[in-house]
């Protein structure tokens, strides 16, 4: 059931075709060709994702650019792809970041063929997750993205790469398997049986708050929370991020973490609205802990990469706070509850925008850490000092990215964080009040890091350090440009997102609010 060109399938599988071509090339003699084929494949995917915006109607509700073919009739599995305002920004984020990573990775000289093969396979996996509208397909792509990441961390990573890689793999797999059971639970509750997400959301087979629904909710929760990562399931992240090679960290932080939050908004919220409302307070608490704990841990780091890794835990906490607020149970009069609808929408829009922004900003930060590590071969904050005099361009880009990350107005991070707080405050006053402390701590550790690394007396050891080269600039400049663009004029992307989150929030608030009268009658 497709009209015209299947642009989503093309976009998802072009990297896989590129991977097949790379496999045919010789590992020793065709290294340059391998790099250019990979660039071409990821670049083509990026262009296709932008071209997909042409037939895409920004304000329209529901899934667009859908492709649906029967796949495994015996299991009611279909090949169903589609995008909406939630997945579109994430898809463009993925294609952009992967393209930049591939270009940045021209400097890798060891086992280039395998590197590019894994990266292209990873890209197909990630894009498939965001486009898939059938649970079986979703799960296949979800797992497909795990395998190449294991190898990328394990082969081209730092000194503790083997430990970090297997920890990442096993930890994430446990979550995925819990999610598999939840998916099967939903499948067998549906009537007629189907794996199709759109169909299941319409059917609502696990509505209400029964024991079965609760188990299914927590199954999905485990799978997504490990990916996000939410405290206390975040312990794989510092190791994986620090040990991964630069481009690996960019993809890990920039895209893979978003798969978890995307899962919450795409699956948990629409499919189990009552259960989500029931447990939203708990999720908000966990989000708050992630925010504060992540920020505090970042403050205590002496390794720049680990600092940024913990800041990711903090930032994803803001996303989850917005998500929790969007589905929270609220009591009040009808009029008040209607006002809260705007708050919920703001919170969820902020959360989705924060997903996109965090990918851009933290992606840039990891590229920049790679710059200094490539030259100095260490990332110790205390070992540097006064780098601003030696590498002015690098300093400028790094400070801009750090300011974007801590939420300086005018840059992207501020818009999404502000929206999350603005939207969540009427719903969770105390929690948001405490979460703002996280912003203060984040500002503190970033500024402190900047002061110790870039300002102050110049450490003579680093006099000879080269400033950013063209490859590094090529990788980070577009990201900084987007930080500025979204920070100054976020309207277009917000319109894109709102088309998807608007109807979702309306549905959630219907399931989640109770009027004062109903509450009174319940209590007798």
């Amino acid at each position, binding site marked *: 059931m497709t009209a015209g060109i299947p642009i989503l399938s093309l976009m998802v599988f072009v990297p896989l075709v590129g991977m097949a071509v790379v496999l045919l090339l010789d*590992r020793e003699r065709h290294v340059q060709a391998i790099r250019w084929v990979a660039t071409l494949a990821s670049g083509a995917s990026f262009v296709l994702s932008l071209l997909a915006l042409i037939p895409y109607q920004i304000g329209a509700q529901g899934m667009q650019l859908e492709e649906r073919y029967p*796949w*495994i*009739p*015996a*299991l009611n599995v279909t090949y169903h792809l589609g995008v909406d305002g939630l997945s579109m920004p994430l898809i463009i984020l993925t294609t952009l970041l992967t393209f930049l990573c591939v270009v940045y990775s021209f400097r890798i000289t060891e086992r280039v063929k*395998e590197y590019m093969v894994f990266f292209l396979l990873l890209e197909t996996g990630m894009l498939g997750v965001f486009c898939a509208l059938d649970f*079986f397909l979703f*799960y*296949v792509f979800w*797992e*497909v993205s*795990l*395998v190449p990441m*294991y*190898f990328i961390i*394990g*082969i081209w990573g730092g000194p503790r*790469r*083997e430990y970090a*890689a*297997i920890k990442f*793999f*096993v930890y994430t*797999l*446990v979550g995925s*398997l*819990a999610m*598999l*059971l939840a998916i*099967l*639970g939903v*499948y*067998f509750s549906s009537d007629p049986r189907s794996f199709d997400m759109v169909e299941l959301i319409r059917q609502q087979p696990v509505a209400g708050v029964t024991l079965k629904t609760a188990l299914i909710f927590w199954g999905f929760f485990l799978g997504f929370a490990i990916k996000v990562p939410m405290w206390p399931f975040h312990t794989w992240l510092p190791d994986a991020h620090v040990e991964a090679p630069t481009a690996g960290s960019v993809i890990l932080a920039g895209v893979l973490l978003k798969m978890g939050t995307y899962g919450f908004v795409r699956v948990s919220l629409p499919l189990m609205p009552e259960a989500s409302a029931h447990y939203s307070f708990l999720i908000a608490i966990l989000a708050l802990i992630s925010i504060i704990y992540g920020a505090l841990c970042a403050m205590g780091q002496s390794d720049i990469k680990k600092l940024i890794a913990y800041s990711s835990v903090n930032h994803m906490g803001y996303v989850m706070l917005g998500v929790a607020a969007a589905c929270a149970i609220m009591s009040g009069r009808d009029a008040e509850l209607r006002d809260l609808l705007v708050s919920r929408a703001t919170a969820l829009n902020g959360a989705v925008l924060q997903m996109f922004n965090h990918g851009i900003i933290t992606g840039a930060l990891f590229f920049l850490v790679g710059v200094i590590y490539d030259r100095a071969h260490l990332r110790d904050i205390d070992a540097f000092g006064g780098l601003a005099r030696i590498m002015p361009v690098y300093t400028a880009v790094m400070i801009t990215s750090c300011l974007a990350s801590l939420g300086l107005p005018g840059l992207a991070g501020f818009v999404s964080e502000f929206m999350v707080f603005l939207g969540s405050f009427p719903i969770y006053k105390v929690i948001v009040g405490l979460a703002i402390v996280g912003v203060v701590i984040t500002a503190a550790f970033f500024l402190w890091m900047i002061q110790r690394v870039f300002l102050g007396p110049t450490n003579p050891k680093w006099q000879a350090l080269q400033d950013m080269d063209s490859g590094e600039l090529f990788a980070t400049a577009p990201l900084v440009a987007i930080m500025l663009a979204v920070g100054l004029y976020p309207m277009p992307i917000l319109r894109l997102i709102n088309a998807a989150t608007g109807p979702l929030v309306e549905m959630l608030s219907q399931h989640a609010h109770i009027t004062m009268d109903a509450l009174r009658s319940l209590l007798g």
Partner: protein
Amino acid sequence: MTPKPFADLSLASPELFLAAVAFSVLVADLVFPRTWRKEIVLLAGLGLVAALFPTARLWGRGPASEFSGALLVDNLAVALKLVFVVAGAMTVLMSADYLIGLRKGFGEYFALLCFFVLALCFMASAGDLIVLYIAFELSSITGYLLAAWLRDDPKSNEAGLKYFIYGAAASGLMLFGLSLLYGLTGTLEVRALADRLTANPTVLGGVAAAMVLGGLGYKLAMWPFHWWAPDVYEGAPTSVTAFLSVGPKIAGLALLIRLMSALQSTAPDAWPAVVGFLAVATMFTGNLLAIRQTNIKRMLAYSSIAHAGYLLIGVVVAWFSPVGLQALVFYAAAYLFMNLGAFAVALIVETASGDSLIASFTGLGRRAPALAAAMTVFLLSLTGIPPTGGFVGKLLLFGAAISVPRLWLLAVAGVANSAISLYYYMNIARKMYLVEGTSEPPVKAPRTLVAAVVVAAVGILVMGIAPQAFTAAAELSSRALASL
């Protein structure tokens, strides 16, 4: 029922064909000159491949029985026979080069292999307790002999002896149980046992069922009858181990399915719980003990034990719903490809390095990239990660467990075990790709082994990406449950 003048031999055509192949290989070994080794391999291999045709022709003929109910032919039997014949053919491919240096007994090896396949096919179709036991014993005896085939290797001798002693005890136990069942019911027909046992429930019936389960458990390498497996798998020639890990295991499951309603009628509420417990114990035993292994054959032995546990989930669910049987048949086919594939790669590495240690896999990603990639696919399939047949199989198995609400704990156990198994399967991938090798020997893979790897890899990927034919066939096989 009026007896027919002539039996419908077409229902037994796969067995007759296989018997012909086996005997002709035996005769060829006597008649051919000593140097005609390749010809014997061709005869056995092509014979087994040709046996696929009479077997496939029986698809859809059933459910039917012949020889007064001694031979049952239904889609389940046909599907499993296809699995056994393919396993046999792939083992022939794997053995060809591996055993080319055997001084004595080269031809007999292949004849015994064909008889082994024949026995397994009889096990899948057994409708009568005597046929069941004869087939069981034939498969056991050929197994003992093949395990000890490397006469100069003390480990092989040890493997054969251990297999024989343990197997003899287990089959004796099973025979005792079967005879008790006959005594209680007065019939040898498997299908009639259930009704007669339900009519007269006794404690002795439960005891008999337990004994039979013990014998079947040995075949399956189910806890607590798995103790023979690691030593036998490690000591036997690797090609034999490969076949042992697939053939007898699935045949044991076939027998368990055939006897399922009979066993259950002795204690209807207890047996699902007991087998469920045994399944979980088997899974954990296999997966936890595999973690510390340094020998690839031993590791795959424990992995096979764990997989028997996963397959037993299917058996438990089959008690309540045909979905369990569908999952089981699909997983059996996927297991065939992924396990034989893994063993084929292990064989190639063993031939290159001279030992069967996991350490010999070091740096395989550089030395033989295509082979390492294939092994990674098999390892991912064994763990249950898409897009492989192992994933679809596990999806079906766990889905089957979830579809019967009271069995959801089995699914949780299965999932937990899959996570545990990732560690030791990835350990091999780690050695292949992540660890820098220093002085590993180059890998020269003989064409027959490469062919086996390719067949297995293609099979497992097709089952993962385009499983429609397999799932449909599995679904049709599961309807046999109605007539069991």
